[in-house]
């Protein structure tokens, strides 16, 4: 088996962005820091005597996960490149379609004259996006799946940044509303 050490760097960066998003979303902090009392605790803990800081814990979790991903990537043989590229492309298309299907389902739910409660369930969006992604994958051009695209190193972290803007929209929307009024 040939080790491709060079691959570890881009894989680390991409995995870091994705894992950081998951760590913050699900609060997978390895440590919690309580700045008011200067106390450090293992895993995510509730605030005590002031705010709790999870950021260090998220970074620690992410760095460990991304290092493992980078290390694993060095052992993946070159002949698997096509499958890796296909898997990344499929996962990316799925993520984009999930967002589209989710909002489409909510739009239909709002406009419908009858109660369609199932449209609000995340499983509906997940299943719909999966079906759409499978159909879309049939039409992936051959040249898109021949080798791992280096552009993922920029596209995936940039997408994660946009997801953070979306997740934090609650902080801005009231201010934007006030400015527009």
């Amino acid at each position, binding site marked *: 088996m040939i080790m491709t050490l060079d691959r570890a760097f881009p894989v680390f*960066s991409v995995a870091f962005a994705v894992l*950081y998003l998951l760590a913050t979303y699900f609060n997978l902090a390895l440590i919690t820091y309580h700045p008011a009392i200067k106390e450090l605790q293992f895993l995510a803990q509730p605030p005590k005597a002031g705010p709790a*800081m999870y950021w260090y814990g998220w970074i620690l979790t992410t760095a460990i996960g991304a290092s493992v991903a980078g290390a694993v990537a060095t052992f993946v043989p070159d002949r698997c490149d096509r499958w890796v590229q296909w898997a990344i492309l499929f996962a990316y298309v799925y993520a984009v379609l999930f967002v589209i299907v989710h909002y489409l389902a909510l739009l239909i739910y709002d406009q419908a004259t009858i109660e369609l409660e199932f449209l609000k369930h995340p499983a509906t969006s997940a299943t719909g996006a999966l079906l759409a992604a499978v159909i879309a994958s049939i039409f992936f051009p051959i040249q898109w799946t021949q080798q791992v695209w280096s552009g993922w*190193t*920029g596209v995936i972290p940039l997408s*994660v940044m946009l997801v953070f803007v979306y997740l934090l929209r*609650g902080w801005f929307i009231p201010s934007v509303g006030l400015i527009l009024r």
Partner: protein
Amino acid sequence: MITTLLLFHGLLAAGLMGATIHQTLGVWWPPRSASGSFFARFRAVNVASYTNAIIIMFVIQAFVGGVLLYPTYRVSSRVVLEQLRLAAPVGIFDLKEHFSTIALGLLPAYWYYWRRPLSTEHANIRRFLTTIIAFTVCWNFLVGHFINNLRGL
């Protein structure tokens, strides 16, 4: 001590912003000749030579801002901003925190693609990563400055 650190953080941020803007403009818009206008000379730098300096400055910035200053912000400034219902400043600072972390994670790939000799096949991804890092640095500078004006440490 906090004021000294904050000044150091601000000065280093200005240096980092200058370096990333030089590199971004140089990589997107290389001048046709070395001489020319001020703007052409601004872009006519050896862009690859900035890489290690940017990485070192970014890591120092992350340490100073994230480890030495952030706990004080969390305890003294953010609580006040929340009490004053200044939601948007808190939100943009949270974005600064997340963008910085993602850019910090991008540094290994950034270093890898800027290794000499520069490969022509990775020219686009070099531009892309440099732009993301430059955007993050500029965002951090502006947000940090704004928050400090609003409620300093």
